[in-house]
């Protein structure tokens, strides 16, 4: 019997740009146990937000995540709007949804690049990140910001699309769609990618349910959940969302699901722009929020994002609880790593699309 060795990975490590710590126990080349430690970028946001007003908190929650910043404010705003009984004008909802979908495209392409880098497939990394620039450019054109857009306000959005922007954005969307389709074609037929991802990090539908996993990781194991279709928040009630599903349950399936989702998101973006209703983009919101509580959910690029908000009638929230989707996938890492080769650890960790800033808050 070979000796067991425990290898610490992290908090600082070359695999991800964000810190987290794994203690991986190996027997020869095979992983037999792992332990996880979080909190290296814990900023105490849930406590901090109790000292800030609802409007100031918009800017705080936008900074929970550096990738899906807009969906955080979307969930927060829709919760506060529900407490206030505010109805957001349709144009505001459409524009809010447009940024959500662009963010999904950018997040999925970013992820594909990281996967490429971690499996030593630099070409995919370069192509995916080059194409992701288009999504960032569109968001910059819409809001002035590439990553933190400050697009949402309580009561609607502060961005708008004019005639000149409309045609520029549509042509960029068409260009991006062609590029993502090309990428999908490449990764579907590329043997290197298959060899590194197929059969790695398998999760059965039962495991997904037991661990309450959400988002593309759940959909790649055949669990058909997508809050855009099931919850119909923002403008999704007026759109038809085709949910991308796969049944293999491995990193390969997660790659396919995310690539197909990016294409579907681009389709939705065009649909949103073409159907953009006339009218105001937001309504004025009062500073104080009546007492009450609300649970607000949305489908972030990584899955279900939940905010619980309790108001005590003042201009500051009494409690905000944030549950980000990556936390649900991290619980499965122990099971996914068991029995894989040491060299595949990075593939397993890439597969779940980690966002540590989100997890730590």
């Amino acid at each position, binding site marked *: 019997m070979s000796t067991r060795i425990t290898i610490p990975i992290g908090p600082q490590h070359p695999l991800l740009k964000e810190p987290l710590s794994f203690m991986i126990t190996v027997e020869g080349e095979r992983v037999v146990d792992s332990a996880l430690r979080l*909190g290296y970028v814990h900023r105490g946001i849930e406590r901090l937000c109790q000292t800030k007003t609802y409007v100031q908190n918009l800017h705080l929650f936008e900074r929970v995540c550096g990738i899906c910043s807009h969906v955080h404010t979307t969930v927060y705003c829709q919760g506060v709007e529900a407490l206030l009984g505010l109805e957001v004008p349709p144009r505001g909802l459409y524009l809010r949804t447009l940024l959500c979908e662009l963010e999904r495209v950018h997040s999925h392409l970013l992820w594909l690049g990281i996967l490429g880098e971690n499996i030593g497939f630099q070409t995919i990394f370069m192509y995916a990140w080059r194409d992701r620039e288009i999504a960032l450019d569109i968001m910059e054109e819409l809001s002035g910001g590439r990553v933190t857009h400050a697009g949402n306000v309580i009561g609607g959005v502060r961005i708008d699309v004019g005639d000149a922007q409309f045609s520029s954005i549509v042509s960029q969307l068409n260009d991006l769609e062609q590029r993502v389709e090309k990428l999908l074609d490449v990764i579907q037929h590329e043997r290197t990618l298959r060899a590194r991802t197929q059969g790695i990090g398998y999760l059965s539908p039962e495991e997904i349910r037991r661990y309450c996993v959400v988002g593309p990781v759940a959909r790649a194991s055949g669990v058909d959940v997508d809050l855009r279709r*099931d919850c119909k928040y923002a403008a999704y009630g007026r759109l038809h969302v085709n949910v991308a599903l796969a049944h293999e349950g491995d990193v390969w399936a997660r790659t396919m699901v995310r690539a197909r989702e990016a294409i579907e998101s681009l389709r939705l973006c065009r649909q949103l722009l073409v159907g953009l209703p006339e009218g105001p983009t937001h309504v004025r919101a009062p500073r104080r929020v009546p007492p009450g509580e*609300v649970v607000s959910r949305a489908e972030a690029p990584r899955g279900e994002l*939940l905010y619980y908000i*309790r108001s005590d009638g003042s201009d500051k929230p009494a409690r905000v609880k944030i549950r980000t989707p990556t936390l649900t996938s991290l619980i499965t890492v122990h099971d996914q790593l068991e029995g894989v080769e040491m060299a595949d650890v990075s593939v397993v960790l890439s597969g779940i699309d980690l966002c540590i800033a989100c997890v730590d808050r």
Partner: protein
Amino acid sequence: MNLPRILELLQEVLPAARLEVQTVPIDEHFISLPPDNLHAAVRALLERSDIYHLSTITGQDVDGQIELLYHFWEGGGLTLRTSLPRDRARIETITDLIPGASFYEREIAEMLGVTFLGHPNPQPLFLPEDWKGDPPLRREFSLPEERQEGE
């Protein structure tokens, strides 16, 4: 989400418990129940209804009690609410029923000082191992700058 059916089910499993129902915006129902009944209620939901997805557990220090909210989702939101005394904040773990609750319980344990009886790995998840002082989401905890102002 078939609320009458779920209420009927919970009342059947917990005949002595008084269940209070409250509906809040965005299609979410809150059911309050005593902490001793929570494990049985979760078991009933998992075994005898379509609900399997626990979105998260929220903990908060409110009205002199530690309140726990178990947020479920099945085509609509269902939250089980229970309150624990601040000086004896203990409750049975639900990780034996839903392994996915493990991280949520660990977070509440360190942030609010709640003991989850029977949790398989009750280690801190976010706070440093050498953390000293009150759990950071309890009311008595003060932020460093607040301390300076007060001192």
